[in-house]
């Protein structure tokens, strides 16, 4: 009991060593975890803007997070960044390379960066990632950035979870934009065309703007160049503006409710997974096996 309480106290003071320790406690499924989480959720926290960045690998998400953090650090803000990279389906290992883009900002007491492997979680955002947001909130950060692994199912999940969703694109992605039309493009709050320093970037920008205008709720389109630090202040303004509007319209409250529900789901899936495997043996009809299992849970719930 005592160690958990002192860990929470240390978190309130924003100690980096203790933030790392708290995340590891959840990562390792420590025996103290459930008590720690109970105490964590008793904390009164002011909501911290959670900015989700998504986009194809190579679009420049990490570089962009780096320059956004750099600008905010100059304003004296405290920044937490969580970056996800894919787990190798063959070895189960992962190469986490997102730090490279902003290592020059360290050492820094106001910047906390943590890399995560996605562990092939199909449900998109793992409970670990979502609880880490809570830890960073308690630690009193001013902004939290979540950089996703790339484009896929989890990118749509991020919208149930982040306060502001930023889709990062780069010039020459014509076909990919076609591919995105039905998905994340519709739910991103801000579309960023990065690498505006590249030749013919204006053509790609014009195509993106033309597309964005056709959407029901046209998102802001912001052209930037992360390496030339071009238009980063405009992007920051749009992020803050979007957050402010969602705050006024009470949309943020909705997002936070969805976040807890999504977290409940992902914990549930994680806990069920080993049991589910036990309840199927070879030769059974898959549908019947699944239905028998779910029906038996239903009966338990009625008694419960």
């Amino acid at each position, binding site marked *: 009991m005592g160690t958990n309480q002192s860990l929470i106290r240390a978190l309130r003071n924003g100690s*980096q060593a203790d933030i790392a320790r708290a995340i590891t406690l959840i990562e390792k499924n420590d025996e103290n975890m459930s008590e720690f989480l109970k105490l964590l959720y008793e904390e009164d926290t002011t909501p911290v803007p959670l900015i989700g960045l998504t986009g194809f690998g190579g679009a420049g998400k990490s570089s962009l997070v780096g320059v956004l953090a750099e600008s905010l650090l100059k304003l004296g803000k405290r920044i937490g960044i969580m970056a996800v990279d894919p787990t190798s389906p063959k070895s189960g290992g992962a190469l986490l390379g997102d730090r490279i883009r902003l290592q020059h900002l360290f050492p820094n007491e106001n910047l906390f960066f943590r*890399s995560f492997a996605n562990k092939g979680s199909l449900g998109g955002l793992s409970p670990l990632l979502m609880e880490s947001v809570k830890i960073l909130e308690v630690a009193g950060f001013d902004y939290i950035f979540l950089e996703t692994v790339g484009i896929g199912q989890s990118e749509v999940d991020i919208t149930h979870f982040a306060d502001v969703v930023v889709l990062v694109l780069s010039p020459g992605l014509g076909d990919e934009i076609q591919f995105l039309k039905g998905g994340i493009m519709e739910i991103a709050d801000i579309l960023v065309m990065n690498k505006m320093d590249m030749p013919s970037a204006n053509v790609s920008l014009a195509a993106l703007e033309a597309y964005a205008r056709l959407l029901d709720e046209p998102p802001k389109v912001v052209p930037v160049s992360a390496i030339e630090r071009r238009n980063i202040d405009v992007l920051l303004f749009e992020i803050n503006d979007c957050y402010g509007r969602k705050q006024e319209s009470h949309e943020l409250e909705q997002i936070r409710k969805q976040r807890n529900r999504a977290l409940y789901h992902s914990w549930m899936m994680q806990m069920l997974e080993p049991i589910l495997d036990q309840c199927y043996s070879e030769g059974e009809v898959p549908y019947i096996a699944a239905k028998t299992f779910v029906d038996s849970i239903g009966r338990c719930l009625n008694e419960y």
Partner: protein
Amino acid sequence: MGRKIVVAKPGLDGHDRQAKVIARVLKDNGYDVVYTGIRQTPSQIAQTVLQESADVVVLNNLSGAHLELFPETAKRIRELGLNPFIIGTGVIPPEDQEELLKKGLDVVFGPGTPPQTIVEAIKQWEQTNP
């Protein structure tokens, strides 16, 4: 739960093929590997190890500055109250290896070491540090 490893390049040495090969071999052996990129200071590396809660740190240097940089980095890491398994790699002559072991490194590998040898060293350490 897989172990987390930070592969770091202290100093001004800009050649990182070797570090990338090591990072990749470790990934292929099931570890979560954070690569810092080149030109890191000892305190940058120490803060990385702290933030990532790394279990193992692999330092790599090819410029000959290992006698200054490796012990300094190990010192900064341990000053933060961390106790990861610290491995030194790169162009390290046999006569320097003994000295590095006295100055805070747990194991040191010189040129020509098969990557798998590094994996074996980590596995061995894991057995005594569950």
